[in-house]
């Protein structure tokens, strides 16, 4: 936690410098410090489309640059940035759904696929994660895989704390159901 606090202080100092008229260099340092995790998150969220994940990451950083003055330091810079990242991701998903004339499946009941798995199939973790709803996948990403507190995840996902906990619990329960026929070490996809 001390390390995270130290990193947050460095971010804060860089933000202060980036807000100056000649702040591009400082902002570039912020980009270099956070791009790896931002792109990794988006790759998890969008799936296998690495180019799309990078496009959304770039869009997120450009938006962060424009809105940097709105960062008040009330949360970690990373939390603030990830909130922008998730908002960009959701915006993209909504636009894509609108173009396809579909409703965006955010919650569990609209999730793609179902829990009935053909006994002949063998789901691995990646395939099982893709079968969760967007919100469950995002909640597990931030709360479990990135080890955010539920409060931080609630800020990033812009949803109430209780809703985040619910998505985590339901996501885990569904993962367990989906993975019952899977044996660790078996990488064969559906």
């Amino acid at each position, binding site marked *: 936690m001390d390390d995270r606090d130290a990193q947050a202080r460095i971010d804060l100092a860089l933000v202060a410098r980036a807000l100056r008229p000649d702040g591009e260099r400082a902002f570039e340092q912020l980009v270099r410090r956070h791009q790896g995790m931002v792109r990794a998150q988006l790759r998890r969220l969008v799936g296998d489309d690495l180019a799309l994940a990078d496009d959304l990451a770039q869009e997120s950083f450009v938006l962060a*640059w424009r809105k940097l003055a709105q960062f008040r330091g009330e949360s970690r810079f990373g939390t603030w940035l990830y909130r922008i990242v998730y908002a960009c991701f959701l915006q993209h998903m909504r636009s894509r759904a609108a173009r396809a004339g579909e409703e965006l499946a955010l919650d569990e009941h609209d999730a793609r696929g179902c829990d009935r798995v053909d006994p002949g199939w063998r789901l691995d*973790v990646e395939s099982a994660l893709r079968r969760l709803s967007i919100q469950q996948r995002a909640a597990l990403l931030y709360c479990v895989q990135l080890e955010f507190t539920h409060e931080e995840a609630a800020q990033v996902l812009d949803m109430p704390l209780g809703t985040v906990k619910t998505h985590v619990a339901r996501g885990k329960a569904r*993962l367990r159901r989906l993975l019952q026929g899977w044996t660790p070490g078996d990488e064969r996809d559906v």
Partner: protein
Amino acid sequence: MSDFKDVSERNLDALLRSRFPGPVPDDGFSERVMRALPRNRQPRIPLLPLSAAAGTVLAWFALLPSPIWRQVVQEWLAGSIGFATVGIGALLLGMAIVSCAWSLEEG
């Protein structure tokens, strides 16, 4: 090798964390972002009065068929500020504020 049902109760979190690949190497991404940054991130100042004026005009058009304008003119000619004048003024002011807030939010 153990069945996942047994493992999941104890180690689902650890399993998920182990599947997170970690930070992606930069490979020129940061430079790409820096090239894409807009030169000026501040809200374009002319946008504020323009959006306020647009909001005011829209409000005026919306109320054009209403007899309230005639009432406002009568109040002005009579040299008094009545309900119609105050109402229209508040509405126009509200539209201008909303337009400004929107343009600031959008940057």
